[in-house]
């Protein structure tokens, strides 16, 4: 009982209290607009007025504000709509309004309506308009309402109708399930460069961030000026050698301490491919973040510090070179490129390179990488040799292989099941700007999504509508598994979306689990014990409740039922109970189990 009970009985109200009046987490519920939205509203109103002036009497401040709210403060769209509406009123008599009239559309009411569902919210109006155009009429409670504001919205809806049929479209159309995404994807395949995600891993201070900073600099993603600025600033705090790493290490804490704490995401393109880089932290304390990055990767770049004693430090039992490699492999990464880094410090010594290559090959094979999927590149992130540009003449006389980037180009993204039900773990939740108050990002794991889809964030049950999609920062109508996307959402408040939640189509959600069986590979000895369960960004507390059996690694047959202890290196089946709320896991979900700061096992949900 004890703890589980304690967690369940914790006082939620207490927690909410702490955020009272703030906009980032909670708010908007009762007191209407958050302060931030109010500021946007004031600004938006001013800007609309600048364009349309104040001589049109029907365009009251109130109406403009409604429009701004409806368009999430998109000034341009609001103006187009308002101007159109003025035009439309003149033709009003010709068209009969058929769309239900929402009542009391003040901003506050509009927000409330979203929660109460007894009045159509702006989005309902859009949906109503759509179903209406398909001939489905929606009964309305609003008909009784007869205030001026009602009339004005009615006109708005009418204008919408006009736009829908004859004149140029003025409202954002959110078509639903119109696109056959799978077919579209097949068609577009030859036209676009496939994007591959790569996670950069390795022991702390191996030079991962410096290497990536260099790569982004030399391939023109980051400009000279920025680097110069970083150099000066880094010098000021006595960290000049970290200037390139600052491209990735952006928080104050990271810079002051000279370590990466969280994944940094960047993209770059070559003639042959497009890559999203996930720069992982090497420090063992931040392995949960590294796991979040690795879960989104198609392949890995393992960076090794070749300088004396450093390779050895990373490679020993408690070093992260091995732990990281095992982790990415157990999360499904098959292809790994080993960047033997800092060779400038070794005067590009071939013997050192060969020594590292020999030891690493051996280890990676035992870790489950096929030799054909492992390659080694000698390089220096600091000097830039053999990253984007070929090494200076004669510097590495014994090496004639590809540069790191050339090697990356040979790695192909993993084929994903795009026709399956949508699954995407939320990597981040934020305000995507003025127009998009709620945006989530992540990599689609399986399935596809298109604008207009209704989605749900599991384990919650709040639904949302996808009102915009960006794939690699380009606006798109749809996206498929493998894409790194930002989804702009409507009809949902930010606090209902949590990093680590899984996005599904509302009509095909996964069922969160409170208890499950998992097949695991043990890295450490296991007994029934408390563990952290990781799946991408998800980091939850749980308990191994039962050791069901150990299995033969060759054929998977049971070697011992109910063992009382599972030794390191064994394959086993265990039962796991989740401490808190059910987790968004399903059969086949890959999980990592950690305890006491060690990765104790990795496996899949049965």
């Amino acid at each position: 009982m004890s703890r589980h009970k304690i967690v369940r009985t914790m006082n939620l109200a207490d927690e909410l209290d702490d955020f009272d009046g703030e906009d980032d987490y909670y708010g908007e519920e009762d007191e209407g607009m958050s302060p931030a939205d109010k500021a946007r509203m004031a600004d938006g109103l001013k800007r609309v007025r600048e364009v349309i002036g104040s001589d049109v009497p029907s365009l009251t401040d109130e109406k403009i504000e409604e429009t701004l709210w409806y368009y999430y403060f998109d000034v341009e769209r609001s103006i187009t709509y308002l101007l159109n509406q003025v035009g439309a009123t003149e033709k009003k008599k010709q068209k009969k309004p058929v769309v239900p009239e929402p009542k009391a559309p003040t901003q506050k009411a509009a927000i409330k309506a979203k929660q109460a569902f007894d009045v159509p919210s702006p989005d309902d109006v859009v949906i109503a308009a759509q179903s209406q155009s398909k001939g489905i009429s929606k009964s309305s409670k609003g008909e009784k309402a007869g205030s001026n504001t009602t009339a004005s919205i009615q006109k708005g809806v009418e204008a919408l109708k006009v736009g829908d049929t004859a004149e140029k479209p003025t409202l954002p159309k959110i078509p639903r399930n119109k696109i056959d995404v799978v077919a579209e994807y097949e068609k577009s395949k030859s036209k676009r460069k496939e994007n591959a995600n790569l996670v950069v891993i390795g022991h702390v201070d191996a030079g991962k961030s410096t290497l990536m900073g260099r790569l982004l600099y030399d391939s023109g993603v980051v400009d000279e000026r920025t680097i110069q600025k970083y150099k000066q600033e880094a010098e000021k705090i006595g960290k000049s050698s970290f200037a390139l790493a600052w491209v990735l290490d952006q928080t104050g804490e990271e810079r002051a301490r000279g370590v990466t704490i969280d994944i940094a995401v960047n993209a770059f393109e070559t003639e042959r491919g497009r890559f999203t880089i996930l720069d992982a932290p090497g420090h063992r304390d931040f392995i949960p973040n590294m796991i979040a990055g690795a879960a989104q990767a198609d392949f890995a770049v393992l960076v090794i510090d070749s300088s004396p004693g450093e390779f050895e430090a990373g490679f020993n039992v408690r070093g992260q070179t091995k732990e990281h490699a095992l982790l990415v492999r157990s999360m499904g990464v098959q292809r790994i490129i080993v960047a033997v880094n800092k060779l400038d410090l070794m005067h590009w010594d071939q013997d050192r390179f060969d020594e590292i290559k020999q030891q690493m090959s051996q280890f990676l094979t035992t870790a489950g990488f096929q030799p054909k999927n492992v390659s080694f590149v000698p390089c220096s992130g600091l000097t830039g040799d053999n990253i984007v540009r070929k090494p200076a003449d004669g510097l590495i006389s014994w090496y004639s292989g590809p540069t790191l980037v050339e090697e990356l180009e040979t790695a192909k993204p993993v084929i994903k099941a795009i026709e399956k039900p949508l699954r995407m773990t939320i990597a981040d939740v934020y305000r995507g700007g003025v127009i998009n108050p709620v945006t989530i990002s992540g990599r689609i794991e399986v399935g596809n999504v298109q604008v207009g889809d209704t989605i749900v964030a599991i384990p919650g049950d709040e639904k949302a509508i996808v009102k915009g999609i960006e794939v690699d920062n380009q606006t798109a109508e749809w996206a498929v598994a493998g894409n790194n996307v930002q989804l702009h959402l409507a009809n949902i408040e930010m606090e209902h979306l949590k990093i680590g939640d899984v996005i599904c189509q509302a009509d095909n959600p996964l069922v969160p689990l409170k208890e499950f069986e998992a097949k695991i590979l043990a890295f450490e000895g296991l007994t029934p014990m408390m563990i952290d369960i990781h799946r991408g960004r998800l980091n939850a507390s749980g308990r191994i409740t039962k050791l069901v059996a150990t299995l033969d690694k060759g054929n998977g047959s049971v070697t011992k039922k109910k063992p009382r202890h599972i030794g390191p290196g064994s394959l086993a089946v265990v039962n796991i109970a989740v401490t808190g709320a059910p987790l968004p896991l399903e059969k086949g979900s890959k999980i990592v189990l950690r305890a006491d700061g060690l990765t104790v096992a990795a496996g899949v949900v049965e």
Partner: protein
Amino acid sequence: MRLIKQQVERDGSGTVTLYPEEPEDMWHAFNLIRVGDTLRASAVRRIVSESSTGSTSSTRVHMNLTITVDKVDFDSQAGQLHINGRISEENKYVKIGAHHTLDLELNRNFTVGKAEWDSVSLGVVREACDPAEKAEIGAVVLHEGLANVCLITEHMTVLRQRIDVSIPRKRTGSVTAFEKSMEKFYDTIYQSILRHLPISNLKVVLLASPGFLAESLQKYIFAEAVKTDNKTVMGAKPKFVTVHCSTGHVHALNEVLKSPAVIARLADTKYAKETKAMESFFKMMQTDEDRAWYGPKEVERAIEKGAVSTLLVSNSLFRSNNMQERRRYVRMVEDVKASGAGEVMILSSIHESGVRLDGLGGVAAILLFPLQDLDESDEEQDETEEGNEDNENL
């Protein structure tokens, strides 16, 4: 708790009257009062009386009631104990057999009657009434976005508040959202500490996290304390200790309590000893598997062979309503004590070390010498055994 009166006969039956003084005493009472016991405590009942004119009036009457216990509920958050039962001693207001719920109150005597006061129950009384100095500590375990604010007393860990917020991740070119949220996260924790931890009474306040969060939190706390001129917090500065742990989940307290910084300050406390004992058990499991056993059947066998050097039992097992079960564990404890070679530790199931032990079925032993195959038996018996354990754990 104060012992007011103890009347236990030769045959083990009898009553004990206790006077609870602090919230933790409810926890002791919870470990004492079983289904089938009698309990006499003060209660308030609403009495409806009819006057000669036929009008009714209801009055609240204070009285002592004795019930036979049907159900015991403990709310560790509120520190309240509710006991359901049926009236077993009639008085002028209530009939025998009527249902009543007694809520034990601080500073009011209650009397527990048992048909059998075993050594473990008497041990609970002794421990509850031990006037040893209380060493309460506050602990905040956190990682980015998650913080658990806990109060650890001699016998229980109470999660006072769990703070779970989404922190926007750092993004290229924009870390302000992240840094602002972190600032706010620290502030939420600080407010929670002020509200939920009685800082002046605490021996130490542990701030524990992976990475640098605990340090940053500590900085934030004292910067705020100075800004707001909070003398209590500023005066308690030496009590705040940062500790490294690997996550912000509550179970990280196991790591925290075994860290050298904590041991140096709290070595003599019961919970530090319990944490250490569990740690030794798990270590033994890794280094010498045959000297670490868990599960009732296995441990029982080890006891028979006189092999147990440390017996670890969770007090959840003694709360079992199954008399048979309860006796079995009492016997194990007594046997180990009688052997003279072994030490017995009864762990509190609402301390993290007790939670860990409960995960193993509530009973484990470190052996003096290795024994093999204690778990071997016919499958059938195994199955029933396991059913019991499962019930216990959930």
